[in-house]
């Protein structure tokens, strides 16, 4: 029985990269924007516009956040697309792939544009 090698490997590797990046980086970021800043736990106003804007303008910061965000989009696309297939939408699998991976591509482009503009 011969079947073609599937390009699903591409989506899976993006999913795996996104999962690793999100697992490593997002929890700390969420604590910062969800607990530390709202409750004023930071000292010396590090979140002031000038400091943050200067940091975010650096190409390396932009590159890192782009990777984190884009990979997370692909991670979500792959995971959610398969979750939908697992609960009954298997017959429209091709359409789901197009919508979700397409969405992740669009999201990544938007991320690139937004980060470029900082």
């Amino acid at each position: 029985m011969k079947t073609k090698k599937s390009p699903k490997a591409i989506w899976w590797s993006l999913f795996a990269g996104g999962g690793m990046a999100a697992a490593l980086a997002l929890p700390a970021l969420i604590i910062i924007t969800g607990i530390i800043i709202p409750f004023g736990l930071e000292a010396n106003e590090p979140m002031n516009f000038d400091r943050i804007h200067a940091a975010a303008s650096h190409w390396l910061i932009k590159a890192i956040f782009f990777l984190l965000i884009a990979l997370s989009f692909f991670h979500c696309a792959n995971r959610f697309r398969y979750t939908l297939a697992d609960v009954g939408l298997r017959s429209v699998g091709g359409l789901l792939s197009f919508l979700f991976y397409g969405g992740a591509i669009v999201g990544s482009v938007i991320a690139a544009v937004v980060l470029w503009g900082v």
Partner: protein
Amino acid sequence: MSAYRRPVSNMWWLKRRSYIWFMIRELTSIFTAGYCIFLLVVFYKLSQGPEAYAGIIAALKSPVSVVLHIITFAFVFYHAITWFELTPKILVIYRGEERIPAGLIAATFYGGWVVVSLFIVWLVLLA
């Protein structure tokens, strides 16, 4: 062959506790993507100037924002711990004849997680 095919329910995942936790794990991806969209909004406001940026930072202090963050954290944290729990099973590495123990690989990832988290906090708030 008059073999009988039993019908499969789309609610199969409600039938066992392990299936339910699996589904929760899968749904964490929505919160992961959602938080990334939020990060992009912050960057966008940053690019729009000091007033826009101050607006979003002020919005973080609202109860709605804090509650959403806590829920998001719960899901993203669950993603992280299941991710690091499963990675050592996949990364089977041999050093010569000996297999590197799964516990060591897990410890490396958890350790790396702590280091990266501390680095991010330092970078964003202290550097």
